[in-house]
């Protein structure tokens, strides 16, 4: 049994890579992941990736922000220390609007982005799990789990047919960063 752990198809053109995905899918070879230097539009449909639910998270965080600041101002301005300014009502909703608006935005932005970082396992100092160093430069990489997907030569041929410039049979999953 070969020691190959992961097979990488390296493409220099996103359209070729898309053809590579087609070739693999036609032959029922599961794709482990795809690494690209830029977002590729239309790839989600092809790979059957569901829409991100981050929008719902964003909405909830926005509602939370609005509630927090509105209650805070209500408590401070109306409940805890109401002030008589020329007999005007303490509960002057128009004055609440700018604050409520700003914190809706603030909570939406930070809540959603932190959710994104958490869901994608991004945080400062995380060891980058890179399979090929050029995937952030000029290579569009399809990764295939070598285990169970045999024969490896067939996979290599499918990738080459689609226009892969290089096919790597790696014994280590990630490029070591020491």
């Amino acid at each position, binding site marked *: 049994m070969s020691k190959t752990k992961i097979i990488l198809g390296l493409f220099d053109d996103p*359209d070729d890579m898309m053809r590579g995905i087609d070739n693999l899918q036609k032959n029922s070879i599961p794709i482990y*992941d795809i*690494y690209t230097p830029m*977002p*590729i539009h239309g790839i989600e449909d092809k790979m059957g990736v569901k829409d991100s639910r981050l929008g719902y998270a964003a909405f909830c965080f926005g509602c939370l922000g609005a509630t927090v600041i509105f209650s*805070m101002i209500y408590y401070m301005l109306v409940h805890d220390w109401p002030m008589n300014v020329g007999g005007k009502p303490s509960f002057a909703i128009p004055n609440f609007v700018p604050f409520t608006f700003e*914190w809706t935005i603030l909570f939406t932005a930070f809540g959603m*982005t932190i959710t994104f970082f958490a869901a994608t396992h*991004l*945080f400062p100092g995380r060891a980058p799990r890179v399979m090929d160093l050029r995937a952030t430069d000029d290579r569009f990489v399809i990764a295939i789990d070598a285990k169970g997907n045999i024969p490896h030569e067939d996979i290599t041929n499918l990738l080459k047919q689609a226009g892969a410039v290089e096919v790597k049979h790696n014994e280590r999953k990630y490029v070591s960063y020491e």
Partner: protein
Amino acid sequence: MASHNESIIREPLMTGKDITYAKITNDILLPVENKPNKAWWIGFTVASLGSLLWVVSISYTFWFGLGAWGLNKTVGWAWDITGFVWWVGIGHAGTLISAVLLIFRQNWRNSINRSAEAMTIFAVICAATYIVAHMGRPWLAYFTLPLPNQYGSLWVNWNSALMMDVFAISTYFSVSLLFWYTGLLPDIASIRDRATGLRRRIYSILSFGWTGSLKTWQRFETVSLILAGISTPLVLSVHTIVSFDFATSLEPGWHTTIFPPYFVAGAIFSGFAMVQTLLLVTRKVLGLENYITMFHIESMNKIILLTGSIVGVAYITEFFIAWYSGVEYEQYAFINRATGPYWWAYWSMMSCNVISPQLFWSKTLRTSIKFSWFLSIIVNIGMWFERFVIIVTSLHRDYIPSSWAMFYPTWVDVSVFIGSIGLFFTMFLLFVRVLPSVAIAEVKLLLKTSSEQAKKKLINENHLDPVEVEYYKESLTKFDSIDMVDYEKV
């Protein structure tokens, strides 16, 4: 398929021959991965001296108190708030480019959004320093926050526009920073994967472990779009709220409902002028002519022309409404602006902001780099005068003639202002050295659809309407980065 062919009649967003994905990375990371050139060192030296001046004058202010400034009992707000509004306004272009243009799918934003957003952040930092400096006792800055305290608790005044400002500016700064940094992650990862040793380690920490996997990119795009969606109303709210600082007062010349839209238009106007000032130099010094093309310059000039005209209309409307309102204090405030002791400030503002941008109706001027740069400086000066006129001329003569006074800046006022410009440029110059000044990943998206070489390939395939091709070729003549000789035979 991933890429499609864009219509030939659209101008290219990227020029240059034999551009590949690797070449884009190399070109953009050139200043990051190499020692800086002489032009950078000269700029950095000058900017650092400016920052030093800022440190000295701010320290002087803190040591001796606000009496070091030229303020008096009548004119209690002058250069500081002028500088504050000026800087916040400049910041607006960055968000406009990164958020509004993203929502409208204006792909030309891809090559300028990064540095424009950086500019936003640095401009807001400069603006914030004025607020803190004007507090006189900056160590009490936390008094602006609604914290429980021993006076009751006596809470902050939620009815005040200044309090709204605290929330607007802090939200604006932090959301802009978040938007900018999230967008930077893939590009920091590009630097990381090319670096070695300590550099790799530092950029590795900064990259948050970005890999560019399928799901990461998908979520990244969702996050960018939603951030853009919420930043758009945010940026409009910020200058609206800044204008409330004035509009909610009873001061003649300030108490007008036109202020919010008028301030927002002015902010975008001055912001784009500052983007031009920075990018025209940056593209030359860093050799980014192929990415920040004449199309970008012309587009920005068109926005300057549009917003400059809006500002012009607003000035005239203000004058008309002052007369139409029948309020004599209001009428006097405006007559005094144009003919009083500060007439020179008013007419500087008028000529810089209203008359000079109209020159951009001429295509020759709009596509001239030298003229664009010159005019961007003029607009920056004009917009500074706008704030000065609104603030100082309204304050110096209001309801009671016995308290009329003049404002004369001291050397500290002037030094804080010049120093903040130095601070801004120091931060910007450091930024272009350590982080990519153009969004690499986003520019790569343009290569197969909107680049000059992709369009040339289309022409060479000969399936296009010759009239459209002629039109396209004609539109290329203005580009300084395209050699028209290549198009003679096609």
